[in-house]
């Protein structure tokens, strides 16, 4: 019965979606407050209806209703409760429903956030923004009704009252906490980007293309940025711990799909500052947020349409076409509105100098957008190359690694230069006061790195390491000096201690200093990437019991093996004595899990062992373990030394912290409008 209620709710939400769009358009056009209110209520009704449908599906999972097709595909009776619930987004039709539900939450929150302001001032900007939100919702509602080809309704039952004895179960690789939370985090981040996009469209539709739409959706943008940052990192962290290849980022199409909206969102967060401060780039900001939003859909198109093969185990299906159609149609709509409002979008000011903060922002934007396009080009290269000369080709990880380094280093330099360069035009005074010391110290650090690497005869990635260290040092000195100067000034003015001054400084301008904290996080992240991508060591060897191998300063000796039975899998592994520079440091127990029952039948997975030495990791993965391992059978061992990988996670944590500081700033209302 529950499933039928859920299905009915989905079909009703088609009506509430249409109702919302119709009444909002009509009400705003004719300034009819009752119609507008009715439209708002319809958006809330959609939220309630989709919540019922989602609840019904979760109920199906929890009660093991194996007459429901989707439940059979992703769950099983023995699956732990947590993974029964996360099975909601385990496959396509369920994840579309989940995505839709998040969108309806966003719609409801937008109404709730704005209702007082709207009531007091009769301001309709947020109502205009509800229309695009409702349109995107309707697109997803239609997909989950199951009426279009290629997707089935996640609440559908098998025909003729058929019932499966048990479900197929979720892929064991996905049954880990970080994988349970990685997809929803990304979804939340992507969906949050819908709101600033909707406000941009609302601004165009209402003709109020000043900074107000930006300010009123600012927290959504920052929230999206923070959540995407966490989500992308969770994915990398999961891959690192679970997949057994010792890395965390491989430029896989799905990873790229999550990274591109992040890049565009970051560009947008920067470029809006110039619109607020200097009233420039009105058009550019609208284009940028539109692009960022479209890339969240494009990601789905790339990963779900099967046009690009990927490490990620997604099914191929026909829904790519719908997404592409929706992307094209909605982009055309935005372009139409831009043409309609063309005259209002002209900038009041122009760039005054190439060496100014405005230019630094522009360069930042070009680099972010450029990087996005480069990554898109590489990701779509199999299609592009086939279109160009009929030969299907693709580019490996190395392409991305090579191509992003130079723009990446330029961006790193800008994280320090941007905050300290003066507005309008750099002056000699500004340069001497702000740039001189950071530059000198940065260059010195670069030179020292060069000397050090030459001394230990480490020649891999020498130039890039030197540049990375030099730029990083420059940024850190520049930004720490900013904090120091500001805090000292505050302390002096308020006649209080330096630390109090620092606290006051951040409290008074959370957005700015939160941003600087993010910049410090970026530098830390770069150092981590430099170490773990540039200097990792890998050794592979077949070992018999008692034999040893060496990886850099580490020695491994295989001394024992073990086997344990669990409810739904068997764990077999070996025990290594690990020594660093000849000194015993402990044991490690890499293993393999053999799952009896999974979505894919029986499955054997790598359970790597990781040992942290400060921020450096030592990592062991095993091939399958022969039955005669105790009596001379060979085990295949792949061991990695990943220097500075811990710094990667620390860098991201600092970035998130900075984001939280920045989002704490109360939204202001702008006077323009």
């Amino acid at each position, binding site marked *: 019965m529950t499933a039928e209620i859920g299905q009915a709710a989905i079909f009703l939400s088609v009506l509430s979606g249409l109702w919302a769009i119709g009444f909002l358009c009509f009400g705003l056009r004719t300034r009819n407050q009752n119609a507008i209110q009715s439209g708002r209520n319809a958006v809330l009704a959609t939220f309630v209806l989709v919540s019922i449908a989602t609840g019904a599906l979760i109920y199906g999972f929890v009660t093991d209703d194996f007459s429901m097709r989707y439940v059979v595909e992703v769950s099983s009776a023995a699956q732990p409760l947590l993974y029964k619930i996360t099975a909601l987004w385990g496959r396509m039709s369920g994840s579309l429903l989940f995505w839709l539900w998040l969108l309806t939450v966003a719609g409801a929150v937008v109404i709730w956030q704005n209702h007082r302001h709207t009531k007091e001032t009769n301001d309709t900007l947020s109502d205009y923004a509800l229309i695009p939100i409702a349109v995107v919702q309707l697109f997803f509602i239609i997909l989950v009704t199951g009426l279009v080809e290629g997707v089935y309704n996640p609440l559908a039952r098998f025909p003729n009252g058929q019932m499966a004895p048990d479900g197929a179960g979720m892929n064991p690789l996905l049954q880990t906490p970080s994988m349970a939370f990685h997809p929803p985090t990304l979804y939340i981040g992507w969906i949050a980007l819908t709101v600033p996009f909707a406000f941009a469209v609302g601004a165009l539709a209402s003709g109020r293309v000043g900074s107000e739409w930006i300010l009123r959706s600012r927290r959504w943008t920052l929230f999206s940025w923070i959540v995407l940052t966490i989500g992308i990192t969770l994915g990398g962290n999961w891959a690192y711990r679970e997949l057994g290849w010792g890395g965390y980022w491989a430029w896989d199409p799905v990873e790229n799909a999550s990274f591109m909206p992040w890049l565009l969102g970051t560009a947008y967060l920067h470029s809006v500052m110039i619109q607020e401060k200097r009233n420039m780039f009105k058009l550019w900001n609208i284009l940028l947020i539109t692009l960022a939003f479209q890339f969240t859909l494009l990601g789905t198109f790339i990963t779900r349409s099967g046009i690009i093969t990927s490490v990620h185990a997604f099914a191929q299906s026909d829904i790519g076409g719908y997404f592409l159609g929706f992307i094209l149609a909605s982009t055309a709509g935005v372009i139409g509105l831009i043409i309609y409002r063309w005259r209002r979008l002209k900038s009041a000011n122009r760039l005054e100098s190439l060496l100014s903060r405005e230019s630094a922002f522009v360069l930042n934007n070009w680099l972010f957008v450029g990087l996005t396009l480069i990554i898109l080009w590489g990701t779509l290269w199999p299609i592009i190359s086939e279109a160009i000369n009929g030969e299907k080709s693709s580019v*490996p990880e190395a392409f991305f690694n090579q191509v992003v380094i*130079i723009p990446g280093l330029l961006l790193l330099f800008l994280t320090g230069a941007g905050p300290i360069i003066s507005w309008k035009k750099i002056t000699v005074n500004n340069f001497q006061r702000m740039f001189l010391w950071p530059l000198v110290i940065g260059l010195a650090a670069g030179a020292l790195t060069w000397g050090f690497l030459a001394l230990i005869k480490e020649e891999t990635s020498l130039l890039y390491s030197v540049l990375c260290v030099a730029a990083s040092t420059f940024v850190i000195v520049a930004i720490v000096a900013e904090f120091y100067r500001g805090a000292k000034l505050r302390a002096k003015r308020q006649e209080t201690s330096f630390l109090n001054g620092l606290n006051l400084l951040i409290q008074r301008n959370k957005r700015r200093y939160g941003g600087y904290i993010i910049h410090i996080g970026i530098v830390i992240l770069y150092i981590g990437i430099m170490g773990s991508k540039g200097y990792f060591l890998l050794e*592979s060897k077949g070992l018999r019991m008692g034999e040893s191998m060496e990886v850099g300063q580490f020695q491994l000796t295989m001394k024992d093996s073990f086997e344990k039975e669990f409810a739904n899998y068997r764990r077999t592994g070996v025990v290594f004595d690990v020594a660093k520079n000849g000194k015993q440091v402990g044991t490690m127990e890499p293993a393999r899990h053999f799952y009896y029952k999974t979505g894919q039948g029986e499955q054997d997975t790598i359970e790597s062992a990781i040992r942290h030495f400060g921020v450096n990791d030592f990592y062991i993965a095993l091939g399958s373990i022969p039955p005669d391992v105790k009596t001379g059978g060979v085990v295949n061992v792949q061991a990695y030394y990943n220097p500075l990988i811990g710094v990667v996670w620390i860098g991201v944590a600092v970035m998130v912290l900075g984001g939280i500081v920045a989002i704490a700033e109360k939204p202001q209302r702008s006077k323009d409008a």
Partner: protein
Amino acid sequence: MRKQRRLKVIAAGIILLCGMALLVFVGIKRTSVRHFTPAALVTDGNKMNNQQVQVDGLIAEGSATWDAANFKLTFAVCDRETAATVNVIYKDRLKPDNFTDGGSVFVEGKYDATQNLIVASKLMTKCASKYEGAESATPTDETSYISE
């Protein structure tokens, strides 16, 4: 003065754009790898001698041997439609999960036309699993890459 400034901005933009385009162009030139089916590679083989190729096919039944002591996997990839096969050596890496006879496989490496052999640097297996999205409610084959 104003015009000149504008020109400078445009010039800077063009330089940046060209720089990025150059990066991409050189990157693609240096790293792009052509994709083949085993049948196409066997027919076109001599042209691709000593070059990087990607091949997508099935693991030929009974062709795989795994020399654990030397960390060496040898097998043949056969075409999905014809009888053409290409031999593969994959060394110094773990045998991927789900490596089973008849399974789908994706191989990247250097092709030696004289021996019809790919020395693989990258190997991905796909595993058969339940399909979703299609109209039928019964399990059929689906392809999904699992490990590298």
